[in-house]
């Protein structure tokens, strides 16, 4: 029984099949990458797994427990945490508060305690703040903890989302293009961070276009094209798979040809 297991997942939007019969399984401590050209359905797959879209077909289980159709906040409580390709930052809050929100599920204070400002509420704030500060330090954002999130750089926001997702103490962490728009140094740092996260026993599911990064840190790689599973295997297997080469080279080759003629 795998930690996260996805079987035959599918959805279509107005007749267009965005994800078609896709399945995979991830174990604790693994880095499982999903690659594929733009529009392949990678983000949609994440949305299906995390309950933002309700799948038309297929099932999602965690440790054998069926999760299909549960709302996102319930899935989060079962240990599923993610970042977003299009940043979903709480822009008006400070970086610290963003991560504090991520600790929400660990917080033990009632609405009444919060209303009347009971000591429990204040104590909880302190505990949450300490945990959030530690996480900010872990992703290298300790020095901007008090800055308004809206004022941070794109690369910083990407890491802020990772810190917020980690704050939930997830069993499965889904990262949607964490290195997109990051420079070489930032990418290196994210590479490092993902390795550490996996080592701590969290299953990491990674969508990424940076092939060097993917091939270096993944245990397994799933290739999607036009909503369908094209191949799956170790980085080496995938790299040598003729169908994958055709898909990537095909795309790449056409572009090269265009350039030559243009």
């Amino acid at each position, binding site marked *: 029984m795998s930690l996260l297991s996805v079987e035959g997942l599918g959805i279509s939007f107005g007749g267009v099949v965005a994800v078609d019969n896709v399945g995979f399984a991830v174990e604790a401590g693994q880095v499982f990458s999903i690659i594929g050209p733009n529009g392949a359905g990678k983000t949609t797959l994440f949305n299906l797994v995390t309950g*933002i*879209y309700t799948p038309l077909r297929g099932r999602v289980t965690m440790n054998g427990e069926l999760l299909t159709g549960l709302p996102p906040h319930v899935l989060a409580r079962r240990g599923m945490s993610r970042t977003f390709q299009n940043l*979903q930052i709480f822009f008006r809050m400070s970086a610290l508060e963003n991560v504090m929100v991520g600790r929400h599920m660990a917080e033990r204070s009632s609405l009444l305690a919060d209303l009347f400002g009971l000591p429990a509420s204040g104590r909880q704030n302190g505990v949450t703040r300490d945990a959030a500060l530690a996480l900010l330090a872990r992703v290298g954002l300790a020095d901007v903890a008090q800055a308004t999130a809206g004022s941070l750089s794109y690369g910083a926001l990407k890491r802020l989302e990772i810190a917020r997702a980690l704050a939930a103490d997830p069993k499965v962490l889904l990262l949607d293009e964490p290195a997109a728009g990051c420079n070489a140094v930032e990418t290196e740092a994210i590479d490092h961070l993902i390795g550490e996260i996996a080592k701590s026993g969290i299953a990491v599911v990674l969508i990424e276009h940076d092939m060097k990064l993917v091939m270096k840190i993944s245990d397994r790689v799933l290739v999607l094209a036009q909503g369908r599973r094209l191949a799956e295997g170790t980085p080496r297997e995938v790299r040598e798979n003729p169908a994958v080469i055709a898909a990537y080279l095909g795309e790449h080759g056409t572009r090269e040809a265009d350039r030559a003629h243009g």
Partner: protein
Amino acid sequence: MAEFLQLVFSGLTVGAVYALVALGFTLIYNASDVINFAQGDFVMIGGMGTVFLAAAGIALPLAALIAIVGAVLVGLLLHRLAIEPARGASPVALIMITIGASIFIKGVAQIVFDKQFHSLPAFSGDAPIAVGGATILPQSLWVLGVALALFVALFLFLEKTLLGKALLATAANRLAARLVGVNVTIILALAFGVSAAIGAIAGVVVTPITLTRYDVGTLFALKGFAAAMVGGMGNPLGAVVGGLLIGLLEAFGAGYISSTYKDAVAFVVILLVLFFMPRGLFGGRSVERV
């Protein structure tokens, strides 16, 4: 049966006016994402303007024309002075701006005009016409006819003219429209102008039936807003259907149940519709992107 038909007639008559107001909402919303709460006040300007100009001795058709042009001017000013400068404001802020405009227009109207109810003589007399055991006022025919003519004219304008197509393109995607050379500012002004004209015309034809006063715009706006949302915001056909539906249900509610809660019908309808279809009758089930 005769009673039923009678209610249908009166329901369609008010419903046509709601539909016109709802169309005004839809037009402006499509062009600018703004919900214009001053939409009902255009109806008032059309009615009150005509009343006072006619009282000053100007022939009714000319008076109506001047009143309509006046409403269009107000619409253009509203766009230029209140909506343009607030570009990029939040939806709530935009709502408050148009509500502020509506309060302002009413405030000016009670100074320029007065605080009394007024009426206009019916255009073609008051002799009821018998239809299938029920009767219909000639003025109701005027309302229905003018509404129909406006629906058709608006449809032709949007589908057949370059300007209309530019408006639809702007509604579909503002950035893309700008890129292909549509002057979005002019399109927005156009939407406000046309909406004002539609509202004012509705005001002119309905005043002989419903009377008018400086503050009649509020109820028209609220019900027109509800009508526009019943069909799903931004859908012109939905606005017309929503308007007629609310008009008819109001008439039936008043006729068969009680007239006390006539003004609540529109809101009960919109709450029920949204309860089952959160994006209106024709709003579809699109999934929000993340």
